[in-house]
């Protein structure tokens, strides 16, 4: 039971990172029905941007006191901004022209963008994993039999806060309303005076910025980053988005935590589980798509004809 609870905590913190990435997938899919394959790589790019900022600030280990807040804020905001702009740039260069093309065309360019980003990061920081300074001190909280690291709490809290902020933005602001309208019917939204290009760019900006935040957090959490991380993390986050119901913000969050839990439990309870986690997660993806393609919280929509 203790082991189970411990894995529960580990799974939730792992899931927090997936959830943050999944938010970006689900937003972009919700608005232009594109699986933004490059999104996982934007997340990795976020960790590299954060690393560059930290190196620039001269941070190479734990930071204490008020300086910690400053360092974290500067790094996160810089990573979010850079990733957000990268996302907007990708949309402008690779997806916008193909908005009316057959559906598979933008998906293929998205795969292409993913390969380009991975190669750029490989050329930038080399083919091997790079160590990431553990900026945030990690006192362990002993809660009965289980140990919770401060970083784990940070991951979970950040993910939940970001989700609520996003929900508020989408349901309480004018721009959010414009996003919902564009997602519902692009042509009608345009006729109502919504600038759909800006709205879609904004969606990419926010989704990619969240991935940037996730990149920083995962760097601190794992203490390492690698140019190819985004491929697997991206696929798992996409699985999370689909599991929760793609296009649904709360669903992405739920899916992210569930995938984290599934991964943690598979590692613990399947013999040689660590080797099989990917197989388990992708099997979940396949099964969800086959049996409940609308996901847990999504409403099932008939295919537009």
């Amino acid at each position, binding site marked *: 039971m203790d082991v189970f609870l411990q894995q529960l905590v580990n799974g939730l913190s792992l899931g927090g990172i997936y959830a943050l990435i999944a938010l970006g997938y689900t937003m972009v899919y919700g608005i232009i029905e594109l699986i933004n394959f490059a999104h996982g790589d934007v997340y990795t790019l976020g960790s590299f941007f954060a690393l560059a900022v930290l190196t620039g600030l001269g941070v190479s280990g734990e930071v204490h006191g008020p300086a910690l807040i400053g360092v974290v804020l500067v790094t996160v905001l810089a990573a979010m901004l850079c990733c957000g702009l990268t996302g907007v740039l990708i949309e402008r260069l690779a997806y916008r022209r193909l908005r009316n093309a*057959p559906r598979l065309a933008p998906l293929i360019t998205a795969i292409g*963008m993913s390969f380009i980003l991975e190669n750029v990061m490989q050329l930038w920081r080399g083919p091997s994993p790079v160590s990431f300074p553990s900026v945030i001190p990690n006192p362990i909280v002993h809660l009965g039999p289980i140990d919770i690291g401060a970083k784990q709490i940070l991951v979970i809290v950040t993910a939940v806060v970001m989700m609520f902020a996003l929900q508020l933005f989408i349901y309480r602001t004018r721009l959010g309303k414009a996003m919902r309208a564009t997602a519902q019917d692009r042509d009608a939204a345009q006729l109502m005076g919504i600038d759909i290009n800006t709205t879609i760019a904004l969606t990419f900006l926010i989704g990619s910025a969240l991935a940037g935040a996730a990149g920083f957090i995962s760097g601190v959490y794992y203490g390492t980053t690698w140019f190819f991380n985004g491929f697997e993390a991206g696929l798992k986050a996409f699985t999370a988005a689909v599991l929760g119901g793609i296009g649904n913000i709360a669903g992405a969050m739920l899916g992210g935590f569930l995938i984290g839990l599934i991964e943690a439990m598979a590692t613990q309870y399947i013999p*040689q589980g660590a080797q099989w986690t990917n197989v388990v997660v992708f099997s979940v993806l396949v099964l969800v798509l086959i049996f409940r393609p609308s996901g847990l919280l999504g409403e099932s929509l008939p295919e537009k004809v």
Partner: protein
Amino acid sequence: MKFGRERPFAVLPFLVLPLVPLLDRNNSHIDFLTNAGAFILLALGLNIVVGFAGLLDLGYAAFFAIGSYSYAMLASQQFGIHIPFWVMLFVASVIAAIFGILLGAPTLRLRGDYLAIVTLGFGEIVPQTFLNLTQYTNGPNGISPLDSPSLFGHSFGFSATPYYEVMLALIALAVLLATNLQSSRLGRAWMAIREDELAARHMGINTTTAKLAAFALGASFSGLAGVAYAAKLSLVSPDQFQFNVSVLVLSMLVLGGMGNIWGVIVGSFTLSFINGFLLPQSTNLAHSMHLNLDFTNYRFMLYGVILVAMMLFRPEGLIPSKQRRAEFREAKLDPALAAEEQGEYTLGPGPGAGTGG
């Protein structure tokens, strides 16, 4: 069967190319051509799924893996089973086709982009499974050596030439099959599904059977490629079948022209040539000029740029199939029509007017 009746020059390459080893005695060149041939075979197989039927398969390397591992397990010391190479060509393509159906059957209801992701997941699961089942596959070390094929009692040995000839024969077979399939009833059904699945179904096409046939036939080609490639290398290991192999084959299709058999062959060979020859050679050249440049590091960038640039500027490929060009252009010319997803394709030529038909 009609092969070369409409296009007699199509037979010409298969008369001339077998003579290449007589003219070029450099084994490394023949070796390169043989590897390129394996990828042409893969591209022809993926073309059936993506080009003809319009189903985006992002895990195609999985079938390549299944073909290769079938040979490795049934024709080596691994289990002491030694089925002859020629029999294995048949067996492995059947095994790959069965897996094609196993993957296809539950996923047929899925929309295009979801199908792509499921196949991607499958493409990740298969090599990972081969990696993890260490007791059967030796895990990361792979299986080696494999039986060398023999013909009339002569073993193939270490020269690339016999493999080259086999590869050519397999490609000829694949081209023959693909050409005939394209203009067959099934080929026209694929085309109809690709353009508008709903309409195809209402016209009485059994879309389930047609899509399963595409998966099975496409997979069987890569089963063939897998056996020939594994036998030539005398080795299989799980890292030969990563996602980038699936994307490489897809880039070949996108570059050459999805749906056009000759376009796909040209695209495939071009990319193999760049990968296996141009990049290493220019790296050597740079090194000889004391430049510390390794162009082979830009390989993935190249696939990415090809996918993005082609989709943006010439989605029908360098040597397009007439229909695919019409489909891509139609969507661009008439966004209103495309907005209703896939409408009628009045610009497209009539059925059966494909490049092979």
